[in-house]
């Protein structure tokens, strides 16, 4: 049911933007951003449910907390970076969008650093000195 709401909101916004764009392109952009944030927030609640289910499963299976934390952080970083990049790209700032994406990539790699260190330490410990 919610998909209809979201699509309806999107369609209405698109028509409005098409109308406004001729007169006030700035408002058109603001409207697009605003609607984008609303859709994102409405989906965030659903996403929270999904993440909650994943978390539940993980705790039931006694998955290491570190893994789950890292995964959730990666999802969050990916989503937020994606959203920001798209908004900026909509505003015609492709370069800033790519910078935001770069930041997202770097942060995801930073997430990987403790894991890589743990693995390398383990391997070094296993290997005879």
């Amino acid at each position: 049911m919610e998909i209809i709401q979201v699509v309806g909101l999107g369609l209405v916004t698109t028509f409005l933007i098409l109308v406004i764009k001729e007169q006030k392109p700035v408002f058109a952009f603001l409207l697009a951003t605003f609607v984008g944030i609303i859709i994102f927030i409405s989906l965030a609640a659903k996403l929270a449910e999904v993440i909650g289910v994943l978390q539940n499963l993980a705790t039931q299976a006694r998955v290491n907390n570190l893994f789950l934390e890292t995964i959730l952080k990666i999802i969050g970083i990916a989503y937020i970076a994606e959203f920001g990049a798209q908004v900026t790209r909509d505003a015609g700032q492709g370069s800033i969008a790519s910078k935001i994406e770069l930041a997202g990539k770097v942060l995801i790699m930073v997430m990987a650093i403790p894991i890589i260190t743990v693995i390398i330490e383990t391997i070094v410990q296993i290997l005879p000195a």
Partner: protein
Amino acid sequence: MNVIEWLGDWLKQIILLILIATFMDLLLPNHTMERYVKLVMGLLIILAILSPIFNLLQKDLNLSSLAFTTDRSTDAKTLAPIDQIKQNSEKLKTAQNTLIQEQTEQAMEQMIQEQIAQKFPVEVMETNVTTQMSPEHVTRIKQIRLVARMKDAHSPDSGDGMRSPQPIMPVHVNVGEEQPASTRTEKPSQQAGLVRSIIDDLKRTWNLSSEQIQVRLEPVL
């Protein structure tokens, strides 16, 4: 059972992690992030697969600290009732000592019984050896009490003293009063001789003084 359980846990972890990874791949909004996310997820899965080895290594490190902490905790716990522990140990020691004493006493009694029964014409009724623990934890014989009875098989030797006077008695009517007396004294003297020789023997074999040995010889029934 434990191993299977542990294996199940491990596999569950890996399977769930892979499931979440694929799910995340679907959730990911942009393909630009995909490679990075895939790399991190791959590392996570490797970590999950390696986790038993990792645990092993970590446990090795933890063992010393664990031992350390438990040592400290036990120290703290045992500090209070250490007197009690000492008391208990004393109790146990004394109990053990008494047990050893009893056993040595029994063994000695048996030895003495056999020895006396072999050497002398007596039947050993009862032997009682009391030992004493010296401060240096050396058991010493304190006293030997021995109750023996003249044997019937050898009674001719001693019994003659009883029977021989009887035929004499009717002969000397006047001295009849003396003679039984003499036989009575003769028999005790014989008994005393036997007792003395038993005592001497015990003294020699066990290296004791005569006050430590009590021998009572009962007459033949």
